[in-house]
């Protein structure tokens, strides 16, 4: 009779290779864990696969948006608002667009590198304004982890001492561009603080990675690893250390549990063959992106968990938020006929405006930060569209050709990124009718803005128009009306989905505890954007990294005590 050797389970299975998953892989393998990581997308490596330094005229599309890359042909984002064979649905009356990439490193390949710490107030909003809920942790709990993330990954910025915008351990920021100085001066005259950006782009070498070479193409993936993406800073180093097994093209479809209600592993589909596999693990870490993790939990039903794994509270999928957003651009005469020079810089604006108003003086809660854009970027598909909006009003021939030359670089834009308050009408659930091509039931989204968000975005529009005017410029288009939602971007468009597996002290109103550990399933953790109790006026990634590191430390502690 043949002797079958019993397969040993892995210590940890991590689903997702983005910011949260990558960080967990690094910390856990360094603690000695044998980790298997499932990634739904293909292998992609910014160091070798980037389109960095590609001229627009090297391709027929000149960098345009394509179905395969919906942020641009050269952008390091494989996927976008639609994925072939992987639909999602919306409840009637809902406007929501869900952005998904499928690739090693996830969204960290092409994100904006805006790396802002949440501030003390951001963890206790209910205590401050009675809306939403407080986090079960505070800034002081996370500060040591933000410090570690800053030191490991690197972020530039300036020490400003602004109370709810904590300073980090910063590398020097790059000087502002010409047009950014115009913005700064106008902002100052309007009493809006305008300070150096805080981006995870190296201006000094760090941990074996060279400093930025200022080609401005971070979104294409950096060939020299001078910006942060999970692949080369977290995942591949963990693999090189020998304790991480990476499986790409692996679509997780369910988390397996035993009769005790503990997770025992993950069932996934090998996308290349269509065959199902199961990986056994003592600990399961979900980092598939907030809504995908929620989807996995909701689809992992069992006798113990008829409403989805770890969902005795019924809050998986609830408290979904996205960042509020709107843009205003305008023509700035002072920038006409600008001096030709290399204005690429680092891959993002070198200045930004953190939230500056006392909400007591306003008719909406919470705040937003302001991002800026413009100047002499690389020409590509769609270059200087609708030039008839500029002062010479259109034309053709020699006059027009000269207009393109002199107006190039004279458009400046502002984008707001603000905090949405969770509401009961905004959540995701499993669609009862629709499955994807793998047979996995898909998500159905419900999304609503409330008066809080509309008024906040109205304030953005008014502020941006005032800034452009203060710069001596003319905004394009008129102020959007209330009927147009003051120009608010549809839900999902800012791509900061959070909250659908929120943490909290009570197992009846939250999915996870303060360590991102499921209340119901002690060997299950979630480390993407799902645990967040609130948005903030700050992008989530740096907090995802800090929370994942902290949760991973806790997993190690529990494991060493024999608790999991």
């Amino acid at each position, binding site marked *: 009779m043949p002797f079958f050797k019993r397969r040993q389970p892995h210590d940890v299975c991590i689903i997702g290779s983005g910011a949260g998953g990558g960080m967990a892989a690094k910390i856990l393998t360094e603690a000695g864990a044998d980790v298997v990581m499932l990634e739904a997308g293909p292998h992609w490596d910014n160091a*070798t696969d980037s389109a*960095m*330094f590609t*001229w*627009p005229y*090297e*391709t*027929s*599309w*000149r*960098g*345009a948006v394509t*179905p395969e890359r919906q942020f641009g042909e050269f952008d390091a984002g494989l996927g976008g608002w639609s994925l072939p064979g992987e639909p999602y649905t919306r409840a009637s009356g809902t406007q929501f667009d869900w952005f998904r990439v499928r690739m090693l490193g996830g969204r960290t390949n092409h994100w904006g590198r805006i790396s802002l710490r949440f501030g003390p107030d951001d963890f206790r909003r209910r205590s401050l304004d009675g809306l939403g809920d407080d986090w079960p942790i505070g800034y002081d709990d996370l500060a040591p982890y933000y410090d570690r993330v800053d030191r490991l990954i690197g972020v530039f910025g300036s020490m400003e001492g602004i109370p709810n915008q904590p300073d980090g351990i910063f590398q020097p920021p*790059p*000087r*502002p*561009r*010409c047009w950014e*100085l115009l913005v*700064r001066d106008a902002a100052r005259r309007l009493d809006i603080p305008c300070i150096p950006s805080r981006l995870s782009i190296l201006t000094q*070498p760090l941990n*074996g990675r*060279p*400093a*930025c*070479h*200022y*080609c*401005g*193409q971070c979104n294409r993936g950096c*060939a*020299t*690893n001078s910006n942060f993406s999970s692949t080369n800073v977290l995942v591949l180093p963990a693999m090189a250390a020998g304790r991480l097994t990476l499986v790409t093209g692996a679509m997780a479809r369910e988390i397996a549990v035993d009769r005790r209600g503990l997770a025992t592993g993950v069932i996934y589909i090998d996308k290349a063959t269509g065959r199902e596999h199961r990986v056994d693990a003592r600990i399961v870490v979900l980092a598939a992106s907030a809504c995908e993790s929620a989807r996995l939990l909701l689809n992992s039903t069992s006798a113990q968990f008829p409403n989805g794994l770890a969902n005795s509270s019924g809050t998986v999928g609830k408290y979904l938020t996205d960042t509020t957003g709107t843009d205003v651009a305008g023509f700035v005469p*002072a920038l006409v006929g600008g*001096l*030709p*020079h*290399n204005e*690429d*810089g680092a891959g993002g604006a070198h200045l930004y405006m953190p939230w500056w108003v006392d909400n007591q003086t306003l008719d909406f809660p919470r705040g937003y930060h302001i991002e800026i854009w413009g100047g*002499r970027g*690389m*020409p*590509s598909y*769609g*270059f*200087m*569209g*609708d*030039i*008839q909006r500029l002062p010479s*009003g*259109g034309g*053709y*021939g*020699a006059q*027009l*050709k000269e207009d*393109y*030359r002199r107006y190039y670089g004279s458009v400046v834009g502002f984008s707001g990124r603000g905090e949405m308050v969770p509401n009961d009408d905004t959540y995701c659930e499993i669609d009862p009718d629709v499955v994807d091509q793998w047979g996995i039931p898909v998500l159905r989204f419900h999304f609503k803005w409330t008066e809080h968000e509309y008024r906040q975005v109205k304030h953005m529009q008014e502020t941006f128009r005032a800034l452009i005017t203060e710069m001596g410029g003319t905004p394009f288009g008129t102020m959007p009306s209330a009927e147009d939602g003051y120009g608010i971007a549809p839900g999902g468009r800012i791509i900061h989905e959070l909250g659908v597996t929120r943490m909290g002290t009570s197992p009846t109103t939250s999915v996870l505890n303060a360590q991102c550990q499921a209340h119901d399933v002690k060997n299950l953790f979630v480390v993407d954007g799902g645990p967040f109790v609130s948005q903030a006026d700050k992008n989530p990634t740096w907090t995802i990294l800090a929370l994942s590191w902290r949760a991973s430390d806790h997993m190690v502690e529990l494991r060493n005590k024999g608790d999991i």
Partner: protein
Amino acid sequence: MVKPRLVGRIMSDLSRRDVVQALAAAPLVGSFLSKTEIERAWRGVGATAGATVQPSFFTAHEYQTVRLLADLVIPSDERSGGATDAGVPEFIDFVLTEGNEENRRIAVRGGLAWMDIECRERFGKNFIDCTDQQRAQLLDQIAWPGMAPAELAHGVRFFNTFRNLVASGFWSSKIGVEDLRYMGNTSIAEWTGCPGEQLRRLGVRY
């Protein structure tokens, strides 16, 4: 400074990946490929505007119109060639063939037809058969939306679309990028910010 391995290789052998890998292999501090080295490497790789190919979307007559009109929108001058030199008609034909915007295909095809209708009504001939002066008379009336007669609104709309397509293809071509004096898409060792002369012109300072 350790010389990256691509120096000394024949330019035509270089691929974009070679340059990217050489950059990745460059030592950490202070050594970067010089701007000239990088630009020399790239020139070997850059695509050129193709010779006139048969259009896939446009008919022969439409294509003649597109070629003529594109050069009227962005002509050649002492600084750079015009739209046809930069491969703009080929670019527009590609975009309309490969893109999935059916409305835009209709708009361009229909707009070209509109131009011919308008010219036949005014001058008894299609656009391409008119004189320069006759063509200019029509374009003068539709190229500035703020000054166009109301009854020519459809032409204005077409011309906005066409001008956008010409600009998109021209300024993203090699000719266009160089004409603009775009000086980026390269590796620099140190970011120095806004040049002094531009600081003075703008009245700003660090």
